[in-house]
């Protein structure tokens, strides 16, 4: 019983950190002790490790949208032309 409650508390604690763990964004890094505690929990909790796996699948699929949707080449070339004209003083 105590073990189950402790696990639930850790699941709640982990759920609040899983996104930051997966992103490693410089604005919200977990500290090393948080990472150790989270990884130890993931190693023994099917529910949380499944969540991590599913978030990774979603993230990977969304990244593919970016690859399929690069900016239009004409637009990129036009913007480089705008930069050239600004630098040459032809645009203000």
């Amino acid at each position, binding site marked *: 019983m105590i073990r189950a409650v402790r696990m639930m508390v850790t699941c709640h604690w982990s759920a609040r950190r899983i*996104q*930051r763990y997966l*992103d490693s*964004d*410089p*604005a*919200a890094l977990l500290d090393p002790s948080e990472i150790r505690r989270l990884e130890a929990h993931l190693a023994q909790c099917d529910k949380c490790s*499944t*969540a991590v796996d*599913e*978030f990774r*699948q*979603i*993230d990977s*699929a*969304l*990244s*593919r*949208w*970016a*690859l*399929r*949707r*690069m*900016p*239009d080449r004409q*637009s*990129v070339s*036009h*913007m*480089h032309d*705008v*930069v050239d004209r*600004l*630098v040459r003083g032809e*645009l*203000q």
Partner: protein
Amino acid sequence: MQADAFRRYVEPEIEVLLRVARTLVGSSDVDDLVQETLMRAWRAMDRFDGRYPRAWLLTILRNTNINMGRRMRPYSVDDVASYTDAKPAFGITPLSTEEQVMAAFLPDDLERAVQSLDTKFRTVLLLVDVDELTYAEAAEALGVPVGTVMSRLSRARERVRRHLQPNFEAASAGRQR
């Protein structure tokens, strides 16, 4: 001097500006918005300290969008479809048949899940997970605190995951058979 700094800090960000502009205003107004952003950045160059050029440019992009009198109307249903219907960029290998069979969900499932999100959640998801901005950059692009980006992103991902739950469960059952 101004020209050197402009080429060094601004020119490498052109593609990011085009991607973010499309997410924020839709595909039709992107070129006007980015061109005006570049012109404003050029005029503001002498006040830029060289730190975080992308964040600086995204702030200019957001203000330019507001000043041009456009309401942000991101991620209409059509815009989301345009992400997924586009032809793969040159050099990008499409998913193999095997990868498609192994995937828990199909591109259409994901597209529906993202379309079902409220606008403010969908924007953050697209900016961070598709346009690959950092939390701080997404915050600059939207004019909200980093904490708001994080909470919206977290809820957006949770909702997408919940939407796809039947697919994940079916895939899991398939693996256990």
